[in-house]
């Protein structure tokens, strides 16, 4: 894309004159931060699940900084329309949990009230709990188009059309390193020998949480097609589906306001056509400052009805007798030597750094073939503990 042009190249192009018009000079620059404006960010999603609800308060930061500053020692309360109060306490800086367990109840509206340690008061619009809406069906199917892989989708029933949904998922998968060996290298005195493994590093589990904002409004479909929405697509080349894979899909029924806010938020982060950009703008959520209506307050107070569904599948179920996806890293066994040229680590150094796993022993000279640790140790990527929900 044009915006990757460097300054120097710009000049060359300009000299060619003709091309200049096409590849206008686009340079990256450090924006001035004199215009930085401090702002409170309220991150709150209250669900219908009865639990300790969580609210995060942070502050905006300058471009050259990378870490948000937590808003500490604030007083946080949620009031419902029956004047029930739910108070929150700060657990870690900026993270506030409700003192008591509660869940958003049908037909009630909730309002968030925040008073910072400096005494500034913030509030949200009163927000109603949306209708609960169970996941009608969660399914996985193999996609054989140009982009091969597994699609995990929800199906809707007729009553669910024209509802605003947000999806979150947690995917958990087995990791089995391709060069796992029941034996390992160990020192016996100064000598390196091969012996039985001390740690089990064969099968691990890892859970990833969705980061992107996934939104959908199911539309009424004609004919007898069941409306469906792909929540997650895993490419066939992704190693996470190599063995057994599980996904927990949470379907959050949200308000239209929440939907609009999240949609704008997600669009605001998309790349634009550089030659004439779409003009961004400040968009307000449903939180505001009580004392100063011009103050920019970021974030949103969502009240959602959540339902979730989990499914499992094995690679073999959908790709029987087909090669596994490539492992996350290249695994070529190599000889770990006792003496190596300058700059190349020898076997002692490799063991000390825990960088290798035993692969095999050469039949003629007894030299040790090893692989990078990741190829023989699943704990590099995941944890050995089987999750509670895991079903084989």
């Amino acid at each position, binding site marked *: *894309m*044009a*915006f990757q042009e460097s300054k120097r190249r*710009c000049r060359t192009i*300009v000299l*060619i*004159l*003709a*091309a*200049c*018009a*096409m*590849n*206008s*000079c*686009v*340079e*990256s*620059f450090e*924006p001035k*931060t004199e*215009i*930085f*404006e*401090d*702002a409170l*960010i309220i991150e709150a999603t209250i669900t219908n699940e009865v639990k300790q609800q969580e609210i995060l308060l*942070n502050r*905006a*930061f300058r*471009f050259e*900084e990378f870490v*948000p500053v937590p808003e500490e020692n604030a007083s946080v309360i949620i009031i419902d329309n029956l004047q029930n109060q739910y108070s929150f306490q700060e657990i870690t800086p900026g993270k506030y949990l409700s003192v008591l367990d509660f869940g958003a109840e049908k037909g009630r509206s909730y309002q968030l009230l925040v008073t910072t340690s400096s005494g500034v008061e913030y509030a949200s619009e009163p927000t109603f709990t949306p209708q609960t809406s169970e996941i009608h069906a969660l399914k996985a199917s193999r996609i054989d*188009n*140009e982009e091969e892989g597994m699609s995990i989708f929800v199906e809707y029933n007729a009553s669910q059309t*024209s509802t605003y949904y947000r999806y979150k998922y947690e995917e958990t998968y087995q990791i089995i390193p391709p060069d796992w060996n029941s034996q390992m290298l160990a020192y016996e005195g100064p000598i390196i020998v091969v012996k039985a493994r001390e740690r089990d590093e064969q099968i691990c589990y890892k859970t990833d949480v969705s*980061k*992107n904002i996934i939104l959908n409004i199911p539309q009424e479909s004609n004919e007898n097609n069941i409306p469906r929405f792909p929540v997650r697509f895993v490419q066939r080349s992704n190693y996470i589906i190599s063995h057994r894979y599980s996904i927990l899909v949470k379907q959050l029924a949200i308000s*239209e306001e929440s939907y609009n806010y999240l*949609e*704008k*938020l997600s669009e*605001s*982060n*998309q790349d634009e056509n*550089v*030659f*004439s*950009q*779409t*003009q*961004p*703008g*400040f*968009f307000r959520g449903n939180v505001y400052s009580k004392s100063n*209506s*011009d103050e*920019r307050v*970021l*974030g949103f107070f969502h009240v959602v009805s959540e339902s979730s569904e989990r499914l499992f599948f094995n690679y073999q179920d959908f790709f029987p007798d087909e090669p596994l996806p490539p492992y996350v890293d290249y695994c070529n066994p190599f000889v770990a030597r006792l003496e190596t040229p300058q700059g190349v680590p020898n076997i002692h150094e490799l063991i000390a750094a825990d960088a290798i796993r035993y692969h095999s022993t050469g039949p003629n000279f007894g030299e040790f073939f090893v692989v990078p640790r990741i190829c023989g140790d699943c704990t590099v990527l995941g944890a050995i503990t089987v999750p509670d929900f895991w079903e084989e």
Partner: protein
Amino acid sequence: MRLVVVFCISLNFYWGFAQKDSDTITLSFEGASLKEIITDIQEISAYKFFYVDEWLDSNTISRSYNGVSLVYVLNDIFEDTSINYHIMQGQKVILTQGSVIYDELPEGFFRLPQGESLDSLFISDTKTIEVLPILRIKEEEFTQNKIEVVRIGKENSNSTNRLATLTGYAINTNTKNPISDLALVIGATDKGTTTNSQGFYSIEIPMGVHTIEVSALGIHGVQKKVIVYGDGQLNFELDESFEVLDEVVVEANRDRNIEQTIGGILKIEVKEIKNIPMVLGERDILKVATTLPGITTAGEGASGFNVRGGNTDQNLILLDHAVLYNPSHFFGLFSAINPFTSNSADIYKGNIPAEYGGRLSSVFDIRTKDGNDQNFSGEASIGPITSNLTLETPIIKGKSSFLIGGRATYSKWILKSLKEESLKNSEASFFDIIGKYKHKINENNGLKLMGYYSKDAFNITTDSLYSYSNRAFSMEWEHKFNERSRGALILTNSQYKFDIEFNGNSVNDFNLGYSIDETEFKLKMKYLPENTHSFDYGFSGKLYRVEPGQIEPLAGESVVEPIVLPKEKGLETALFISDDFEITKKLSVNAGFRYSLYAALGKSLQRIYENGMPRNENTLVETQEFEENEVIKTYGGPEARVSARYFLTPDLSVKASYNNTYQYVHTLSNNTTVSPTDTWKLSDLNIKPQRANQFALGLHKNINENEYELSLEGYYKRSNNILDYKTGADLLLNEIVETNVLQGQGKSYGAEFLVRKNHGKLNGWLGYTYARSLIQFDGTAEEEQINNGNFFPSNFDKPHDISLVTNYKFNKRFSLSANFVYQTGRPVTYPLGNYVYEGIEYTFYSDRNGFRIPDYYRLDFSFNIEGNHKIKKFAHSFWNISIYNVLGRNNPYSVFFVTEAGQIKAYKSSIFSIPIPTITYNFKF
């Protein structure tokens, strides 16, 4: 000529001989011309005559002489003519026109200080001056000046009268009406007079050489050299003032600026803009417009104009009556108007004449020049980016002509030949072609046909190809009913379309298209009942057809779902009448009235939303279906176009105007600047027409015979239902576009100051504008508000704008010009900081247009070298060397922020950050 030269030499030779003769002549003739008489005299006597044939008029006289002297005969036959004679020794008679040849110098001649009046002392034929060095004192300028020389009366050598009475009348060349109040000033004296109401005048002036200047408002003033020998008559036939002066780069006609009833008009003559430095060597009529007060662009390389705080879609750009929707190439770096085939552009930014309508802010009325109906001729230009060729040829000599002009880039070829891989595969090309046929059927009927096509194609990434095209056609039949009444029948058709093809060999390949087509029929009449009135009236009807967008998968495997948005149709009709009425000499009024009526037509599905609620799916009440050509909704109303002019003094006028306008088509654009993917949307049930009201007041002054022109204009404009989009709106291929746009109010005001020097070696202009453009979107619901519903600066609100255009002519061949531009940086929405929400980093922004990009300034130079002016040469050539952005100022075009790999990166883009030299070669044949 020859004869004159011979005469001159001989005059020199025989200078100083005495005038004496006593021979007698007997002669009679009837109905003989002077020439015949002289021939006769030569035959019967020994006299030889020297003269120029033309001096002897063909009037015939009859006389009979018996034994009279030659002097007697000559006195008699030349009685009623301006011929004088001189009889020299050797029986040679020299005839002169008016002049008396003195054979001795008056007393004290050489003692006269130079500069003291010698007016009546000696008047020679101007052609003889070269050989009469001692008498050249006041005459030098004769030989250099092309001013017409007129001889008045006949000198009588015996007369002691040093004063002569000059009388005459002045009439208008076109109307043959007498011109009253025409001022006559006799140069170098304080004498002057004016014509009476019948156009007559009388003045007593010293004999001799004078410069007489005449001028009147609305009349093209002239200067005449007169050589006054005696009493005589001098009549003037004068043109109305609309001739463009030579050195002027952009010229309102002489006195037109103060005279015209309508304020806020700019006229650009294409042939005069070549001296203005231009980017990449392209002459550009629309770029010149932006150096004048009140017309700006959003940024360098941005297409579209903002006239007096109006949006870019509010300008009606007409090429020979046909609308051009996107008159730009290359994102606005070049205009799509071919400078070689264009004649002039009238830009109405204040009061729009009643015959035009459908846009709020301005009318750019661009006219193509008529082809040469005498000879085959042409013009070509070779520049670094484009080449241009224009050919003109008569079809029937003197009656009909054809003109064709084309322009094309060779950037495609340049890009292909580059080593740089990413550029090699890119494409950017454009061309435009225009043809015009003009036929003068007879005295009373004329026909003009014009066809135009332009196309741009470019890609930003290698797998996408953008292209857009304009097509225009117009036909104009002019008919003269009588001296007082004329009419024109105009038929036009225009089309604008764009197309995006994405071909990345993926499942997402698509082809996306849009088009708008309009056909207009217009009848325009002019009626001149008497001198003080001038009526224009007529009606027009325009049919719009829009294909708002369709997308189709490109290859078989493409998963892109085809979408075809339903077509839109609308009919805009208007009646108009205006009268330019001169109430008194000082006060004139142009009162225009237009009634426009727009009907949105089916076939269509229209969505009806709850009243007073933000439009979205939840407030959708029902969807109504309309049949083909069924009227969905009509809008319209009266539009007043009133302006008045009052002369405070003869060279100072004040003008005021009020103007209201309707606009039924709107662009939908997410971009700050016009982009080729902007779509035009017709008003329908949900999108109301835009409206504007403008008040303007201006002072116009000419100084020193129009050497300087000054104007100061102020305006205040309110607009309603202007369109903007909700933050983050999706406008392309959106069937329910009304849910994404907002209609709000606009408010703009400003003061425009322009001083222009029209004559002399140094000419040019300086413009300064203070202008604000504010908009407001204050819907009832929060989602219908921008910036809390307060007024905020529009994208093109640039309070201070200075343009200086100067041109210095060293001589006929060399000239240097310079441009300087300064503008306040345009408003942008700035990122104020970063924040993390649900684990992802975002940037948050200021209020819409809360900040400004750095100020813009630029200096350009251009040097012109004209080829020599030999008449017989095959081609007249012309070199232009220009440097754009001499200061190398890195003017940011835009500032923007993108998230890359979870990090916010800021970019600024500038189009030209270093000085850019170009050379263009032009020639005419």
